[in-house]
């Protein structure tokens, strides 16, 4: 793993604390994500990883602290505005539009940057035609990219778990994100499929997208990330290159256990 | 605006409001229960109520009592009330069961979308209500005066009568019983589980159909009792009154937080009060307006009602 290509920060999580009643889900969490890298976010169950995503994408407001994306504060922004700024995500518990086809799911993503207004749609002004055509091409390309092109017109509801996960990725990519946040994208994949996913994530990065990855499968995490941040009980306990983190005794004790699986 | 009227009669508006509210609350329970479990606005619940109310009147008619009869003697009054209450509860629970069997269960079997349920509910409601209308030739039926509305005693100068005591008392007792049943019993736990995730509940060994039936029976009996109390208080029943009353009761359920049993009580009483105060302040014609205005305003500030949802999940 060579070092991070640029040191231009894309996302800064600045001493973020988030409480739910008595539960402190995030406790002064502090890390920075640089443009073009793949950052792994790992930690035991309930450590606060998903909560961190939720704070970034505007679902929760941090109790304390700040999150900055491309230099702008996230707090107070609407969710769809955050998406337009270039942050996209997938969900740990899949959240597709079940009664829309795979294609349409992705088209909703592409629409994030489309400008067709109610008026131009109503009268089918030229912009409508142009954007529809471009979106459709892009959507098909993305479905091809994640490997479910064949299920173009299938309702999302009818896809299997794994296919749904792929569709989530395609839909997120359709919003043209600068930062793609993947919450356990490999859950429910077998090792061979994980291997494919690993390739996919690399390709995504190669198209210039920065990736933040939550994942429990250490082989995948080790294989693809440039850097890793480790949370436990809402606190950051380690940060560094994959190899460093893997050998960090704190991480082993809290998370990895006997390191036979991680080999 | 007539503040004078409102303040000088504040006590009476309060007591009558609470009494009316108690009836709303009892009916609201049926909406809340069914909604909690099936996510369905059971529009036909108003007819479940009407069935009980008619059953009570017809029971009295069966004993030879019509609206001009006078009944005296606490013993016979209690007897008539009790018998009619039982008949009303059975009639309502029976109607509810039939509706569930005929209108909703087939849809569940077919995995129908939620809106389809809503429409059958509306259809069933219209059909049953019309059937009652045709049967009674769209005329009101009078109930005998069983309980006098002469004041029994005064609290702070506000007269309290036996009908008010009876209504509020029965409503409270029924409500507490239902609350205990849902929150403490095993079947109650099953009800809550089906409310949240029916498929998984089946995987835990819960018989969904049976739970749903129980829910309809419980809600139905409450509505039946409400029907009887309505008869005692208003003394006249027309087939068409269910619609608006049902709507109000559902409003009460939503005000309190739908799916929340205690919310139904709070919502019902609140609605009764507001209606009466508004009648005093603006005139009786604004009563329903006030009820709905309250709903709109309250939901703006508390989108899931006063006490929030509880039987089912709060929607994510």
């Amino acid at each position, binding site marked *: 793993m060579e070092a991070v290509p640029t040191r231009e920060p894309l996302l800064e999580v600045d001493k973020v604390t988030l409480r739910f009643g008595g539960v402190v889900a995030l406790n002064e969490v502090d890390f920075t994500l640089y443009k073009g890298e793949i950052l792994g976010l790992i930690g035991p169950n309930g450590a606060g990883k998903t909560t961190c995503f939720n704070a970034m*994408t505007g*679902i929760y407001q941090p109790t304390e602290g700040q999150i900055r994306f491309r230099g702008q504060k996230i707090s107070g922004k*609407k*969710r*769809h505005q955050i*998406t337009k700024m270039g942050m*996209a995500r997938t969900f740990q518990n899949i*959240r*597709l*539009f079940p*009664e*829309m086809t795979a294609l349409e799911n992705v*088209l*909703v*993503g592409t*629409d*994030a*940057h489309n400008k067709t207004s*109610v008026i131009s*749609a*109503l009268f*089918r002004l030229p912009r*409508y035609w142009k954007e529809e055509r471009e*979106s459709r091409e892009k959507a098909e390309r993305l479905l091809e990219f994640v490997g479910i092109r064949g299920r173009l*017109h*299938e*309702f999302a509801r009818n896809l299997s778990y794994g296919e749904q996960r792929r569709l989530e990725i395609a*839909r*997120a990519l359709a*919003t043209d994100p600068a930062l793609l946040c993947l919450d356990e994208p490999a859950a429910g994949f077998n090792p061979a499929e994980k291997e494919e996913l690993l390739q996919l994530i690399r390709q995504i990065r190669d198209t210039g997208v920065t990736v933040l990855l939550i994942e429990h499968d250490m082989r995948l995490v080790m294989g693809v990330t440039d850097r890793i941040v480790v949370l436990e009980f809402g606190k950051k306990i380690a940060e560094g290159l994959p190899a460093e983190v893997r050998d960090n005794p704190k991480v082993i004790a809290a998370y990895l256990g006997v390191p036979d699986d991680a080999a | 605006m007539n503040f004078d009227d409102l303040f000088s009669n504040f006590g009476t508006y309060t007591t009558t409001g609470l009494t009316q509210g108690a009836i709303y609350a009892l009916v609201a329970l049926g909406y809340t229960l069914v909604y909690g479990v099936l996510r369905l*606005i059971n529009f036909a619940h108003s007819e479940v109520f009407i069935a009980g109310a008619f059953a009570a009147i017809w029971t009295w008619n069966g004993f030879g009592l019509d609206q001009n009869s006078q009944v005296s003697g606490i013993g016979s009054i209690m007897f008539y009330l009790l018998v009619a209450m039982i008949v009303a509860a059975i009639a309502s629970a029976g109607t509810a069961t039939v509706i569930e069997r005929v*209108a909703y269960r087939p*849809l569940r079997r*077919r995995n*129908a*979308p939620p*809106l*389809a349920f*809503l429409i*059958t509910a*509306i*259809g069933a*409601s*219209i*059909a*049953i209500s*019309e*059937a009652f209308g045709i049967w009674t030739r769209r005329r009101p039926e009078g109930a005998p005066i069983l309980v006098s509305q002469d004041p029994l005693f005064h609290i702070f100068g506000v007269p309290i009568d036996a009908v008010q005591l009876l209504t509020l008392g029965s409503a409270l007792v029924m409500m507490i019983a239902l609350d205990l049943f849902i929150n403490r019993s095993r079947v109650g736990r099953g009800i809550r589980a089906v409310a949240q995730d029916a498929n998984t509940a089946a995987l835990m060994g819960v018989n969904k159909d049976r739970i749903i039936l129980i829910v309809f029976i419980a809600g139905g009996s409450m509505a039946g009792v409400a029907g009887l109390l309505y008869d005692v208080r208003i003394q006249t029943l027309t087939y068409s009154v269910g*619609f608006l009353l049902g*709507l109000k009761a559902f409003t009460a359920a939503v005000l309190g937080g*739908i799916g929340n049993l205690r919310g139904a009580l709070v919502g019902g009483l609140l609605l009764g009060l507001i209606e009466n105060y508004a009648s005093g302040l603006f005139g009786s*014609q604004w009563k329903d*307006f006030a009820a*709905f205005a309250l*709903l*709109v305003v309250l*939901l*703006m500030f508390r*989108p*899931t009602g006063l006490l929030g949802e509880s039987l089912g999940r709060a929607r994510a």
Partner: protein
Amino acid sequence: MTNVLEKVRSGREAAGERWRGAPRWVRWALLIAVIAFFYALPNKEFYQYLGPIPTPGANFTQVMFTVSIYVLLAVGLNIVVGFAGLLDLGYFGFFAVGAYTVAVLTSPSSDLKTLWPWLLAVPVAIALTMVSGVMLGTPTLRLRGDYLALVTLGFAEMIRIGAVSSEFLKGQRGFNQIPHPPGEYADGKPFFGVLDARPYYWLVLTVIILVVIGVRNLTHSRVGRAWISIREDEDAAQLMGVPTFKFKLWAFAAGAAIAGLAGALFAGKQNFVNSQNFELLNSIIILAAVIFGGSGNIVGAIVGGGLVAYMIERFRGIELLGVELYEYRFLFFGLVLVVMMIFRPEGLIPNRRRAAEFKDRRKEVTVGE
């Protein structure tokens, strides 16, 4: 029973397949034929040959006018309920706003005494209903699902009570002498008179065609996708960059505008408008119509709105064993709703989306196996 149903279903699907498979010009020809049929329908010279279709107990042209208004309303409500998934139980309230706007601006019984011509009042009615849609939507569209349903229902009821009880809206006393749409025959007789309902029907029919084209354009675009994604999963839609609130408001406003237009057309024909024209039951009937026809599908909504309105009127003048069935119309209506939903829970003509699904499945099979 199931066998028969199965057959009916496959027959209908086959018809659907054939429709989609047919060449473009065939489809256009058929469509034009259907439209021509409906333009011809209210002429006695034509409908007298249609067997049991004309209503025996009421003027068929009048009935067709009512039906057309319901169709227009169903098309509008379908945007809100079928596409955006916002359960609106008080849709008729917007119809009332449209009708009252026209009444207040044009009728001599109005306090305003503006006495505008009808045509001038129509855009104002549409604009005002849109505004009222936005005004109702802004505070309430945060609410989800059934809460919204009840709030909209409450809103419609508030409008009705307001109309009954306010001096300005004249209650049951109502507004009379509302002018008709403009236009004259060569001989100077007004085109839109009191007695002949045909011109009104033709007008509404034309409006329906225009509105349907507009709605179709919307739903086949970014706007329509946004609506459907909101219906499917609002949170996820937001996170995919859909400004959900804005699009919900648009859905509400578009639906309201159509209802307002319908109300204006109604007032222009009716001459007299009072609070009894706006019973709550109407809202429910229209919702039932949309779902009965197939929510989320424009053709479904049209068929639903038409059938439901027609069905209710059709009972007039039929006698069975000495009783006029008209009195039982709502009993039957209720029963039909229940039975229909049990046998076709997805509506008469469900979602086009399902059709697309089947089509591409067919392709898959030929490729894969």
